[in-house]
């Protein structure tokens, strides 16, 4: 009997090859344990609201009014909603014919894109063109779209940092391209050595790969660091010389917990470098409403901004966006509110400021609790918030091999079973051969952090004692 189209062996190989560890083996095991009644602390994905972070009040008020515009006609609406939320709701409803329920322009609501362009200009000091800004259902969709435009054949390569957020490896696999790794240097605050980059590209080309693009994740995921200005300049120069399009994933630009290396956008640095490079280097920058202090992951809101991409290519990218008609409208409004925030003097400004500051300061404190906590554990080093290196003893590595698991997967599963802490093994993000990490997040509630860190320490030190 002939096999059927959707029998496993007949599936698209690229689908089978692609892996996405953030919701892979560890997460599935954690979900199983949760069903059995075990208390699980999910730190596998950057999902703040799932761990108790509250949504900012003002955006939710605006969206609720946009959802139910008949409220705006009710004389009692002021009892529940402040005047500036009401005004903002009216503003956003006026920007899309049909409000939340109509497909918008496939690039996103023009008025919101203008707000995003203004935000970028205020941030960087250089003007931005709303026509080159596309809103998307989360930054992930935008990243996938751009990579799909770039990858033509299996020998098309994309430079991706190791460790990386596995959306990149999964997408490159899915679209049948080649991932070309470049290594970040753990001992140098996960910085970049330009010579490593040259080596990576050289090797890839020797293997017949046409390297077309370079991804930077800044601030880094999973590593949490910001690239220095010098690094950014080197990267931009490198992409220019090597004829690569630079893809700058900047979704964590609001999450900075140290003052040593502030965030600088790739675009700002590019324009600071002046012509000819500022007019020639092809750059796509990505941002989101899912991170920062907003943490509105469930809305699926994001954008990408294209710099120096030729008009005909922009047309093609538009064409692909139009097939899905439009990104979801509520998330576009969240993006508008993020880009065009309340000002001093607005009724809700004080509350909004207080809530935002509160979240950011708490994140900063938690980042430090975690860093210090990890660094005080046996054989745990170089922790910067959430991607500590675990120096696994050879006997542990052997034990892992016996059960056919990667060493860090083995460690993380044992950690999960002992403490309920669900992390993602470093192999999900890529790491140097023989070096192990795990990724967690700094998102558990502040009051839970000390006990989580002591749980971890107890488990780790016992594990190390057992296998040393």
């Amino acid at each position, binding site marked *: 009997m*002939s096999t059927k*189209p*959707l029998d*496993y062996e*007949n*599936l*698209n190989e690229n*689908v*089978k090859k692609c892996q*996405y560890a953030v*919701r892979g083996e560890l997460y599935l095991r954690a979900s199983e344990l949760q069903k059995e009644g075990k208390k699980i602390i999910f730190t596998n994905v950057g*999902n703040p*609201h799932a761990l108790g972070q509250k949504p900012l009040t003002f955006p*939710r008020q605006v*969206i*609720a*009014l946009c*959802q*139910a515009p008949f409220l705006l006609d009710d004389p*009692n609406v002021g009892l*529940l909603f402040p005047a500036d939320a009401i005004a903002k709701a009216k503003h956003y409803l006026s920007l*899309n*014919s*049909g*409000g939340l*329920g*109509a*497909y*918008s322009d496939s690039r996103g609501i023009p008025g919101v894109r203008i707000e995003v362009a203004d935000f970028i200009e205020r941030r960087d000091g250089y003007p931005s063109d709303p026509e080159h800004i596309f809103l998307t*259902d*989360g930054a*992930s969709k935008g990243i*996938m779209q751009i990579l*799909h*435009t*770039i990858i*033509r054949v299996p020998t098309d390569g994309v430079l991706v940092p190791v460790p990386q957020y596995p959306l990149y490896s999964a*997408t490159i696999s*899915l679209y049948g391209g080649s991932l070309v790794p470049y290594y970040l240097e753990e001992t140098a605050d996960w910085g970049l050595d330009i010579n490593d980059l040259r080596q990576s590209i050289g090797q890839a080309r020797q293997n017949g790969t046409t390297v*077309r693009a370079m991804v930077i994740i800044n601030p880094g995921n999973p590593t949490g660091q910001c690239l220095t200005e010098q690094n950014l300049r080197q990267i931009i120069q490198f992409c220019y010389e090597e*004829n690569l*399009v630079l893809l700058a994933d900047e979704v964590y630009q609001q999450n900075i917990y140290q003052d040593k290396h502030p965030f600088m956008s790739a675009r700002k640095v590019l324009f600071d470098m002046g012509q000819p490079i500022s007019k*020639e280097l*092809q750059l796509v920058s990505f941002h989101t409403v899912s991170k920062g202090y907003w*943490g509105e*992951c*469930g809305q*699926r809101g994001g954008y990408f901004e294209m710099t120096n991409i*030729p008009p005909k*290519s922009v047309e*093609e990218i538009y064409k*692909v966006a*139009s*097939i*899905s*008609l*439009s*990104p*979801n409208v*509520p998330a576009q409004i969240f993006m508008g509110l993020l880009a065009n925030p309340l000002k001093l003097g607005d009724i809700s400004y004080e509350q909004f400021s207080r809530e935002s500051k509160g979240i950011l300061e708490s994140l900063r404190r938690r980042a430090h609790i975690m860093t210090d906590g990890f660094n005080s554990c046996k054989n745990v080093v170089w922790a910067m918030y959430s991607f500590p290196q675990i120096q696994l003893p050879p006997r542990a590595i052997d034990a892992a091999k016996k059960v056919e698991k990667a060493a860090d997967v083995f460690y993380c599963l044992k950690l999960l079973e002992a403490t309920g802490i669900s992390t993602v093994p470093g192999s999900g993000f890529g790491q140097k051969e023989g070096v192990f990490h795990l990724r967690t997040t700094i998102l558990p509630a502040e009051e839970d952090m000390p006990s989580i860190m002591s749980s971890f320490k107890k488990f780790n030190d016992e594990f190390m004692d057992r296998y040393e």
Partner: protein
Amino acid sequence: MDSITIDTINPKVLKCEYAVRGEIVTIAQKLQQDLKDNPGSHPFDEILYCNIGNPQSLAQQPITFFREVLALCDHPSILDKSETQGLFSADAIERAFQILDQIPGRATGAYSHSQGIKGLRDTIASGIEARDGFPADPNDLFLTDGASPAVHMMMQLLIRSENDGILCPIPQYPLYSASIALHGGTLVPYYLDEQTGWGLEISELEHQLNTAKSNGIDVRALVVINPGNPTGQVLGEANQREIVEFCKKEGLVLLADEVYQENVYVPDKKFHSFKKITRSMGYGEKDISLVSFQSVSKGFYGECGKRGGYMEITGFSPEVREQIYKLASVNLCSNISGQILASLVMSPPKVGDESYESFSAEKEAVLSSLARRAQALQDALNSLEGVTCNRAEGAMYLFPRINLPDKAIKAAEEAKTAPDAFYAKLLLNATGIVVVPGSGFRQVPGTWHFRCTILPQEEKIPAIVSRLTEFHKKFMDEFCG
């Protein structure tokens, strides 16, 4: 040489087309800007977008109950306030509580399970069972940002190379042709029969399947759009059973696009889901692989901007389901508000609920208005010289056929435009009415059509009819000589 230029872009991107927001719309937007900058610069004072199934952009009102629940779920902190009871109906408040209790921590801002929130899938599964009389498993459901991403997922799974073919109806909604091109596969056309109300003949399916096979194409799936887009026909039950038998016999995955399931305007036709049909034939998981798509964008709710929808997958092995789950997980999850809306659409207010009467009245008003507009436009089109238009049994569109005179076809060739695009452009420039040329949907070669929605406000229909009629007469006078 720059990295992303028109010469170095992924050729699959270059190959795909999507006419619904294609060239004609770009022209329309320019004209709209003209009217803004220069009132009186054209022989019409507004653009009438009849190109896209986007009801709320043309003043269709959303369903109140749905929006009440969504607003409360977006801003749950007002649920405990007494003022809320004055502004929202009691059953909307109750439903919001119910939904929020199904979301861990009531966190609507958190990524959910990659298939969608379990409690909402339970609700949708119950809704499917109530609709069909056969059970649905919430684990078979994948909630997506509209039905379109679900279609893309299936194409991704099914297409390995350009030797993989997908049978698609002609005319078809161009998501299918675009998605197949994007994923590097081959569209295998099967022609719907205009003479028999866009009938689907099994003999035609067999013929096309065999032709494809003889050309070395491995045909993997059959797409059926029911009710049809752009054609508006609703399949008869017997026809549906034949289609199921065909897929079972040929080992094809049946991809059932049922997004217009709540848009049926004629008393002699009824929507039956393919899930119901297969189960009523006694076929289960082992007999046929079926993927059914539904959306919140159409029906009487028309919530296009929300991007809500789902696919129900049945008849797949656990290994394959794992792969589908994996694909869904790369994007983490679909937007939560859209998920909630999908659950509301599949389990609306019932008899006895406080909001039931107003909900019913709103639903009835939208559907009866759509039926009236369909009829009015259909009659108008059929009264034009050289134009025939099948009735819109369902969906949101009319797809009239225009018998273009030779002189017009020649003029189109000279202008290097498809003849129906030529007609559509002239129509736009003369009247401000935007339709999509039939070539965007594909059609029997040598025939010409355009797709016009039935969505413009009822009070604008007479003006549309008269402008269209006047334009068409002038067009025929000019090109018939």
